[in-house]
């Protein structure tokens, strides 16, 4: 705590130091040349900073200030500079005092114009892609919203693909992202509270929630935790996530991240809180539970029976991805009695020439698999396919034929690899990827006893986790039977009568009962 205070102080001093000494209280001066001087000093050595004087009656009357590339220079030319330079102000240019007023009226073609009176506000505004206009003799400056920087088009998020469902994803532009949300929830209850984080980056962060559904205690906690953050820059939502999660020493993410606006909207409707960060397509959704790691967006866009079926498959895949290699090792080296005779014999037959113990064999293969996986992300696209083919051949066939690994082991590792991608949330799956190795070592040392120890430890850890006061394993532990409709099974839409106990605040009722389609519907 003490360290933090000290740091704060230093930062504060720095800020004061960097301001020109002869300016008091940060107010704009009525003398335009002073303002020009101050601005030029602030933006010293900033080659992308443009301060453009406009001469009226041969005198410098107006300065247009913007950062090149951030603001839409073309629109600026058309709606502002052109009429000023060539047509002149319609009311004549006599009275200097009125210019500001006239300008403000004249800039109606620009959607958002604000007046600021502080130099720092002006600088901030210009850095946030506005065009600043200062007029001689005025102590107010105008900020015209003429954002015009390059942004990516809306694309389908590559990490969360659905078969059926909306295909738009968040982009790096915060405004676009909020618009994607607003388009889904057209209610004044959808609140988007802005907050700026980052000493230098001054990143816009938005806390989105639905007023009336959200649990106030969670919302307050989010606000206070966000306000506590002191960081130089926020380049990705992960920067924030690590500051505001409950248990930093856990392999499991306690805040969900998503690129999909529909997931965020659905979470908001459940009473969760979303944090949108500028310059990243990944929004944070909290609180997160263990089970939301298994809920894919597609679950809610398919028929509920299939969604339930696929969810059960997913749970099986999860256990396969954690336990399969370790169970294989434990069975073959400690408890071969438990393997059916003919299977044991075929395993024994293929292991006959393998020089390594089973644990080493699995570790080797798992290492190769994870290596391939990591290399696949890094490699340039044209090389990638070549490497994966070689990798597959080397691991799958050559290693077996050379007698370095056994064929069942390749099956085990490949199955595990496939299974580990069955978890819909990528960052959630990463946790299990690490646990797999721990289990493997335990199984190699202690057999089933080790697996059981590992499983118990894992369960204890998971049950102890909390995300913003919500137990990570809820609603299974603690058990809330009403909320079990969206855990292992995905109940039909008309059965979601209540919101989740832990997430939502006042408004627990979700949809009215009795909406199950039937011939008698609507008769009553």
């Amino acid at each position, binding site marked *: 705590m003490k360290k933090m205070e000290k740091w704060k102080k230093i930062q504060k001093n720095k800020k004061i130091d960097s301001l020109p000494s002869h300016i008091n209280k940060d107010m704009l001066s009525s003398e335009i040349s002073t303002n020009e001087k101050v601005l030029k000093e602030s933006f010293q050595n900033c080659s992308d900073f443009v301060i453009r004087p406009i001469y009226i009656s041969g005198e410098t009357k107006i300065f247009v200030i913007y950062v090149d590339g951030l603001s839409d220079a073309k629109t600026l030319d058309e709606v502002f500079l052109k009429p000023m330079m060539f047509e002149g102000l319609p009311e004549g240019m006599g009275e200097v005092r009125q210019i500001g007023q006239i300008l403000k009226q004249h800039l109606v073609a620009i959607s958002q114009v604000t007046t600021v009176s502080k130099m720092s506000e002006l600088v901030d505004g210009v850095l946030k892609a506005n065009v600043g206009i200062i007029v001689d003799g005025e102590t107010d400056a105008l900020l015209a919203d003429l954002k015009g920087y390059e942004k990516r088009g809306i694309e389908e998020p590559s990490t969360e693909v659905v078969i059926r469902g909306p295909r738009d994803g968040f982009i790096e532009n915060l405004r676009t992202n909020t618009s994607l949300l607003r388009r889904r929830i057209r209610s004044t209850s959808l609140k988007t509270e802005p907050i700026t984080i980052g000493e230098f980056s001054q990143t816009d962060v938005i806390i989105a929630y639905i007023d009336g559904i959200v649990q106030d205690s969670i919302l307050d906690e989010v606000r206070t935790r966000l306000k506590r953050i002191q960081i130089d820059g926020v380049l990705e939502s992960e920067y924030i996530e690590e500051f505001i999660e409950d248990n930093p020493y856990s392999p499991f993410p306690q805040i969900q991240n998503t690129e999909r606006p529909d997931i965020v909207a659905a979470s908001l409707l459940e009473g969760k809180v979303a944090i949108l960060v500028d310059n990243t397509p990944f929004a944070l959704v909290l609180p997160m539970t263990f089970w939301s790691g298994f809920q894919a967006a597609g679950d809610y866009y398919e028929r509920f029976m299939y969604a339930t079926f696929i969810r059960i498959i997913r749970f099986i895949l999860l256990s396969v991805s954690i336990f399969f290699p370790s169970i294989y090792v434990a069975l073959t080296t400690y408890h*071969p009695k438990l393997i059916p*005779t003919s299977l044991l*014999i075929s395993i024994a*037959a293929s292991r*006959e020439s*393998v020089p390594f113990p089973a644990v080493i064999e699995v570790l080797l293969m798992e290492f190769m698999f994870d290596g391939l996986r990591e290399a696949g992300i890094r490699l340039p696209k044209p090389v990638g396919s070549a490497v994966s083919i070689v990798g597959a051949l080397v691991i799958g066939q050559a290693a077996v034929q050379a007698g370095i690994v056994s064929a069942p082991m390749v099956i085990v590792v490949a199955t595990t690899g496939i299974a580990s991608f069955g978890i819909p949330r990528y960052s959630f799956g990463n946790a299990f990827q690490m646990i797999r190795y721990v289990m493997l070592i335990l199984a190699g040392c202690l*057999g089933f006893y080790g697996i059981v120890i590992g499983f118990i430890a894992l369960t204890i850890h998971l049950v102890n986790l909390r995300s913003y006061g919500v137990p990570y394993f809820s609603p299974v532990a603690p058990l809330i039977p009403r909320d079990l409709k969206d855990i292992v099974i995905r109940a039909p839409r008309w059965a979601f009568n209540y919101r989740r106990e832990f997430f939502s605040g006042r408004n627990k009722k979700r949809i009215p009962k009795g909406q199950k389609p039937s011939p008698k519907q609507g008769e009553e």
Partner: protein
Amino acid sequence: MNRRLICFVIYSSLLFTSGCWDRVEINNRAIWIATGLDAIEKEGIQLSGQIIIPSSMNPQNGGGGNGEKNFFLISAIGENVTDATQNIQMKLSRKAFYGQRRVLLIGEKFAKLGLKNQLDFTIKDPNASLRTDAFVVKKGTAIDMLNLSYPLENIPADAPLKEHFQAGGTNDTSYLHFLKAANSKGIRPNLPAIEIGNFQDGEGVGKKGEKSYQLTGTAVFDQDLKLCGYLNMDEYRDQLWIMEILKKRSLTILIEDGNVSLDLDKMGSKVIPEISRNKKIKFTIALTGEGAVIENNTNLDLTQPKNLEFIQNEFNKQYKKQVVHTITKVQTEYGTDIFGFGEVIHKQIPHQWRDLMNDWDKKFSDADVTVKVNLTIRRVGLSGPTLRK
């Protein structure tokens, strides 16, 4: 934080220093699939084992064909089984692994000498499975049988196991049944018996002259676990029916000049003991069964209720005779209660059992047995009257 680290180190070293490390790779184990026990005069017992050769089973090399045997036989002589096991290990490059042993073969001579003092090892070894099918090799030795390969099964020891399963018996719990019977006073143990011979000759299976084996019934033991005789397959089935182990059975009877077969798929039995005032013991055995007539080589038209009833009665009559014959044979020839009638008394009239149990075999032999067979023919098929008209 420091304390946590110390705790972590202590706990994790606890895991790895317990010393109980029994990790053995599969390629360091000899997979032992069948055990044979034979009596050798003077020297004691001969333990033999069938061990799989995994490399010959490699599916990549075409699955053990080429007429090569994919198992090998190993045997050693010792004072008792543990002694013999130790002697066997000297001939074995890998640690013998008994966890997959599903078959226990007992030579006739060994069985006749009595198993009472020789079976402790099968219970005490933690790796050895009680889920074992034990056989007595009739007129033969266990080692001879272990040396035979079987054309259908990759693992030859699977063959007797599956034969027993097809015949419908205690299957892989037969050894467990045996042990239970050996430890209770109201039932005497029996084990399925198997016989080596040229059973495949002239039937198109296997090479000419190659020996094979078949299930021939059951071996009956007395109280000292000594073999005292055999029952044939039909008698064995009767015993299993009385003990309610049998699930399905085909019955065939002769009527006039033809024969009829009934395939039972629901079978039941009930044994009711009765002890009269003069200590005379009487058992009433009610056997039931339901099934379909699957073969009818008589002139009777079974679609007629009259004929059906006749056949049903005929079945009841003939099988009653057969079961009575089986029980009488056991009572008179062997005098050991393999049917577990003593246990029935123990359960139903416990206070009387205390007086009876000490000399049960004698009392079992003297008991009166009444058999009621009540079969129901559910279906006769729709193919109409028989071809013979």
